[in-house]
């Protein structure tokens, strides 16, 4: 079962760059002067890589948040990191700096992280559910502020903000891919470095503490690493929902192993899921691509409910 899925996933990754508004023959790869060659290397390949890395980061971020908050419903988006990025992108667009919007998005995401940790440091005792509530409060605040941005923006600006909130994988060239690859490497390195602590957190805070772990510090480092990575991801593509929620759950159902063993599979299949979603979005035959965030939610929500029913009934 696992091997068949892996084979299908690899096949999908291999064929994904060849399909889109124009389908490319394999022979085009060998002719450096053809238009198809340019489309493949400048547009399709970066896009598939982008989708893969973003999907991986979001899925792994979901796993870490679910572990740290001991709540199967939490994702990086729950803490307001994505909403912060979205709000700041809207601000960039309204101020007329839309070319700088990735930078603004990153600042928005990081500001949210700093606010969260600033608030948490004032708690007398470390308490992850309070942190979660602060994140939810921030999300609502950002949502209201985003409404203000819509209200004061022109029609054109509103449209741009709307498109960002729906998520998009439009990208050209490899520079951004390198940034994302480094971000992914950073996230994976931090998580692997804290693998023992992560496994202890999968039991209980109390148990982890008694084994000598500084639970608060460990949680902060993991949350910080995920927030940075998700901040970078959202700044490139806008918020793409559901990947962080469903991929860890699906992988646990398939592998039936503790989460600390699923770090690499969750990253990989998170990437594959987003590549698949993007492939579908690009090939529905509509005049323009369906926004990727819409598609992940359309695919993810029913499948997630199906999984829950199946698990609860067995």
């Amino acid at each position, binding site marked *: 079962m696992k091997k068949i899925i892996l084979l299908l996933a690899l096949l999908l990754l291999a064929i994904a760059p060849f399909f889109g508004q124009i389908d490319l023959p394999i022979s085009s790869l060998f002719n450096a002067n053809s238009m198809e060659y340019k489309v493949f290397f400048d547009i399709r390949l970066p896009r598939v890589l982008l989708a893969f890395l973003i999907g991986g980061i979001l899925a792994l971020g979901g796993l870490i948040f679910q572990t740290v908050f001991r709540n199967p419903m939490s994702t990086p988006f729950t803490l307001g990191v994505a909403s912060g990025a979205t709000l700041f992108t809207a601000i960039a667009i309204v101020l007329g700096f839309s070319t700088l919007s990735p930078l603004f998005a990153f600042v928005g995401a990081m500001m949210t992280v700093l606010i969260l940790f600033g608030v948490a440091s004032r708690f007398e005792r470390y308490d992850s559910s309070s942190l979660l509530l602060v994140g939810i409060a921030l999300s609502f605040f950002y949502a209201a502020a985003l409404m203000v941005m819509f209200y004061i923006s022109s029609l054109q600006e509103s449209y741009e903000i709307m498109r960002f909130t729906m998520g998009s994988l439009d990208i050209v060239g490899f520079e951004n891919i390198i940034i994302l690859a480094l971000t992914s490497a950073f996230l994976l390195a931090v998580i692997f470095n804290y693998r023992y602590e992560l496994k202890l957190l999968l039991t*209980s805070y109390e*148990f982890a503490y*008694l084994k*000598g772990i500084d639970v608060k510090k460990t949680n902060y480092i993991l949350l910080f690493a995920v927030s940075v990575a998700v901040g970078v991801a959202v700044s490139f593509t806008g918020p793409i929902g559901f990947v962080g929620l469903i991929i860890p759950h699906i992988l646990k159902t398939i592998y039936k*192993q*503790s989460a600390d063993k699923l770090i690499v599979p969750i990253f990989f299949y998170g990437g594959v899921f987003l590549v698949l979603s993007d492939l579908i979005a690009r090939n529905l035959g509509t005049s323009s691509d369906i926004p990727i965030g819409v598609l992940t939610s359309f695919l993810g929500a029913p499948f997630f409910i199906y999984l829950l029913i199946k698990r609860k009934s067995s």
Partner: protein
Amino acid sequence: MPLKIDNYSNEILKGISFSLEAGEHLIILGSNGVGKTTLAKVLCGMTPSSSVSIDNITPSKVYGEKRAKLINYIPPKLDVFDEFITVREFLEIGTFNNDLSIDASLEKLHITHLTNKACKMLSSGESQLLLIASALLHDARYTIFDEPTANLDPQKMQLLFNLLKDETTLQSKLIITHNLDLAYKLGYNILFLEEGAVKFYGSNSDFFTQTHLDALYDGSVEKRENNIVVKL
């Protein structure tokens, strides 16, 4: 290297002071809600306090194996978040004892057949035995057991009694319990809490006299031959 707590108070506990030498065991008694578990959490540092020291080290101020080796707390219920962590994996992550293998610890508790079962799927009695195995593998100088017999059937109760009485792996055991017969048979010193304060701290034989029991338990407990019996 004694475990010491010096004049500790919070919302529940009032001016708790006592000390326990390494190698000695202690039984902590007291009615529901009197602060036994609260005291345990203070002692092992989960509720940080500088009133507690072991060999002049405050457990909540150190990290890593240094603290783990000082004191351990075994809760009444197993709490595991991940649904696929197996019994073996659970024991692997908390092992500081080089002289005891995981297999040997499983055998001691008669739960070898559960090795590859997910912790979430264990019955409450089985998970209690797993927790005891984890205490042996953790091997702290002081180990606090919080109601270790609450969910055990008679055979498992006997098994646990023998372990608590004769097992030499653990240097000092602190046992929180409501089972007076167990407390009596173990023969360890008694700490009795009432209204958040230490009401009695002394030898087992001084504690278990009929007049003393009548004063503490309103005549609900009777000493018969070699047993402590709750009158029903």
